């Protein structure tokens, strides 16, 4: 089920980018099949000029294939690809104003770092003096001055990563494509490079299209993210919107941890809040905008949004609440992760910062009876695909309730 960006739930701080932005990359109804396998299934996408855009998803979701089609390494089975308004669907890679940072860098092993970086400019017939000044400038940008005469086998993975970046950026492409460029680096280096990449992107102002399976990486760097699953994207938006307002079960589960409980929207209630009758008998509230037009839903809340109260404590009137029993606690230093059993045989995950309770005696212990509470605006609503599918089958409703 595809979801269009404009249909995504609104949160107050949406729209950090100017509303009217030039489109750097546009995909119109793009399909890619490998034999019988559909790798990319009818994707419509607009990447804005100058933004850091990520395609996020598990392996096999079609993110790399999408990137390769933008780069010109794969031809789409159907659809249209535009770069800055120009149809490039059938142009070979060497005629597109895009450059790629490959997964394992793909540095030319027989050429020096300098020649690797100069490769694109040489093919374009740029004069030697300009190549030299631009290559020097690029190696400075990626903080590798003085590496000109080394060979790729004489530098580390992190350095190779920077060279690959310099080799692509020196050509001043309209769009830079990055295919899991940090995947081969160790965690510490990866964190460092994330900051570095973001800095470089800001400095050069080039549109980045970034492919990754690492949700944290995508959230750290991206202006917008398309969360992909099985050949299409389920939701597209800014990182905080994807996290706070996931619209599908997949997005809710792929980005961070989500507690989901099935329920039914009570259509009669009015006001800013929709009332939702959960299947476990508890009634909670959620922002009306999120529940509009839905009946069977999954109500979601993030673990760090939940507070645990003692039974005698007063939970603020407006908050959602339900009784719970601590089942397990794991202390993680900065926070403690609890598994809490709630009515209806559901188990919630709760993160509590170790501020008010920090020592072992203060922490909640398994078996303790608590009240689970959270603010209604922290509820999000996800379509209950399984219930929808069942309902569709029963009533033979052909039209999809959402998307195209």
């Amino acid at each position: 089920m595809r979801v269009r960006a404009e249909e995504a739930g609104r949160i107050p701080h949406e729209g950090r980018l100017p509303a009217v932005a030039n489109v750097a990359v546009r995909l119109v109804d793009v399909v890619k099949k490998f034999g019988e396998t559909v790798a990319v299934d009818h994707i419509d996408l607009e990447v804005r000029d100058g933004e850091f855009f990520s395609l996020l998803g598990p392996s096999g979701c079609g993110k790399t294939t999408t990137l390769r089609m933008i780069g010109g390494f794969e031809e789409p089975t159907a659809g249209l690809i535009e770069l800055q308004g120009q149809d490039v669907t059938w142009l070979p890679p060497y005629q597109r104003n895009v450059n790629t940072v490959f997964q394992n860098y793909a540095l030319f092993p027989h050429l020096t770092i300098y020649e690797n970086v100069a490769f694109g400019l040489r093919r374009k017939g740029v004069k030697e003096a300009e190549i030299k000044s631009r290559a020097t400038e690029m190696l400075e940008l990626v903080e590798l001055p003085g590496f000109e005469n080394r060979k790729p086998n004489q530098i580390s993975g992190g350095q190779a990563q920077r060279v690959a970046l310099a080799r692509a950026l020196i050509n001043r492409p309209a769009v830079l494509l990055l295919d899991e460029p940090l995947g081969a680096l160790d965690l510490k280096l990866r964190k460092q490079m994330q900051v570095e990449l973001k800095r470089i992107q800001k400095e050069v102002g080039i549109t980045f299209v970034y492919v990754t399976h690492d949700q944290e990486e995508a959230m750290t760097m991206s202006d917008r993210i398309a969360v992909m699953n099985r050949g299409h994207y389920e939701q597209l938006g800014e990182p905080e919107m994807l996290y706070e307002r996931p619209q599908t079960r997949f997005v809710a589960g792929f980005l961070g941890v989500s507690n989901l409980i099935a329920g039914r929207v009570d259509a009669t209630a009015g006001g800013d809040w929709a009332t939702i009758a959960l299947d476990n008998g508890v009634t909670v509230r959620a922002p009306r905008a999120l529940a509009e037009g839905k009946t069977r839903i999954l109500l979601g809340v993030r673990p760090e949004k939940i507070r645990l109260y003692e039974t005698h404590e007063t939970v603020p009137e407006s908050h959602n609440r339900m009784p719970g029993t601590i089942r397990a606690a794991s202390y993680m230093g900065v926070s403690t992760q609890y598994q809490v059993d709630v009515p209806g045989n559901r188990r919630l995950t709760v993160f509590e910062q170790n501020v008010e309770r920090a020592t072992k005696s203060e922490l909640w212990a398994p078996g303790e009876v608590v009240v689970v509470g959270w603010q209604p605006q922290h509820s999000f609503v996800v379509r209950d695909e399984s219930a929808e599918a069942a309902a569709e089958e029963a009533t033979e409703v052909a039209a999809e309730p959402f998307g195209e």
Partner: protein
Amino acid sequence: MGGFIKRHRWIAPYALLAPGVLWLLVFYVYPGIQMFIASFWSGTLETGFTFSVSNWTNYPDALQGASAQFVRSILYAGAATLLTFLIAYPLAYTIAFKGGHYKALLLFLVVAPFFTSFLLRTISWKIILGDSGLFLAPLKTIGLVPSDFRLLAEPVAVVSGITYNFLPFMTLPIYVSLEKIDHRLVEAAKDLYAGPWRPGGAIAGLVIGGLLGGVLGYIFEYSIPVFAIAAAAAGAIIGWFFISQSFTRVTFPLSLPGVFAGSLLTFIPAIGDYVNAEFLGNPGTTMVGNVIQNKFLVQNDYPAASALSFILMAGILVAVAIYARALGTEGLTTGRG
């Protein structure tokens, strides 16, 4: 035993080398020394041979007597190496990059001729190239070539035979080096604007083709201009249509170790070969291998034969050293150009 090896790890590499070293000592070094001594002999089989350092004149004498064959060996082996390269490279390239599921089968077909004896294969070329053989008979019937035209017993037949016999030695190393190339490097080159190489490729093809054609025309003792022009035209067409910048800048440089290995594996045995010249040539196309074979086995002139063998060996060593230097040995041994 296992414990012993564990305690004396330094032994392992030597133990692994030992069989090869022994083999070479018995079948290469010892006969080599024997032959070196023989090259300073004088006398005949009937009177017996005597060793004397003053017999070093065997060397200049042998060289003088076989200088034409030496030159011919170099030319024929060189031409055959060049032709095997021209045939093997596209073949290996296609198997490596377009072979798909058929790679193993295609590689098997490349080595399939080895299942037949070397002699039989060479003799079969005699039949194919014969004056009214498979190849010439139809051409003569339709009048495309004059009825007295022949291929057999000409330099072209000897070179063709060598080319055919050593083709797998060129194909396999090139295939291995191409196979190893990460396809993303080619994609990266295309991403960095390496497109078709025009008109550079055509011009390069024209020049290289013309030169090689001229050389082949000379070696084959046919018309040099005709060969040069035909090869230049072929080179220009190949250069225009098939040679891309990603090939010249990435694929080809990265396959050079294979080209180097393949050309050595072809050139070295080819220069000492005598079977092809024996069966497919004429008395005017004999190579140094024929002379050595004749002196050793027919005339029993061991000193001269040994001296010739040593000159050939030294010549090859020098040539290989120059060739390795030109291509850069460091790059070749590490697989990085």
